[in-house]
């Protein structure tokens, strides 16, 4: 029962982060929101292993964390080294 509060809080923050990811306005804001969503997913996973009474499966959360890092670093690499045709602020201003 005591986990319900935390799960609720995490779900509320997921909603807020998703709104930020949908609003943008730059790609970097979306990437930031995506990174935070990954952290949230990791925490939710860890908590749900406790809810269903199998705390040994927390190592899956480690996999989530690593993947989150891989995704963010990939985003950074492509935006820094790639010639990506201005995915920055100017390109996004008329969207959403």
């Amino acid at each position, binding site marked *: 029962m005591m986990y319900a509060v*935390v799960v609720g809080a995490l779900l509320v923050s997921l909603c807020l982060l998703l709104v930020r990811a949908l609003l943008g306005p730059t790609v970097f804001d979306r990437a930031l929101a995506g990174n935070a969503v990954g952290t949230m997913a990791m925490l939710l996973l860890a908590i749900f292993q*406790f809810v269903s009474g199998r705390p040994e499966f927390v190592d899956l959360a*480690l996999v989530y964390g690593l993947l989150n890092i891989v995704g963010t670093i990939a985003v950074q690499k492509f*935006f*820094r080294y790639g010639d990506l045709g201005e995915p920055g*602020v100017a390109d996004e201003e008329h969207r959403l």
Partner: protein
Amino acid sequence: MSAAIDILSMILMGAGGVFCVIGAFGVLRMPGFYTRMHAASVIDTLGASLIIVGLVLQSGFTLASGKLLILWLLIFFCSPTASHSLANAAHRRGVTPWQPDQGAKSSSKN
């Protein structure tokens, strides 16, 4: 498990959840990209740490708490790296920091 530890872990996890909500609210509310990153780092550090410490208290001295500690270390070593790389990429791409005097323009853009 004694009731005191139970209550303590409940308080810690509740506080962690509150900080997660505050951080996510900040990510939504802050103007400009760099200021949003500061809000996100509240989630990554205090929110996640408090929840993990609460879960460690729940599981006691078992293998699960070892895994949770490794998870905590992972967050502490990797989340600043990811944040820095994002900020660096934005800096390289010429995302300018938000300034208070351009607030009207920026808020209309959002």
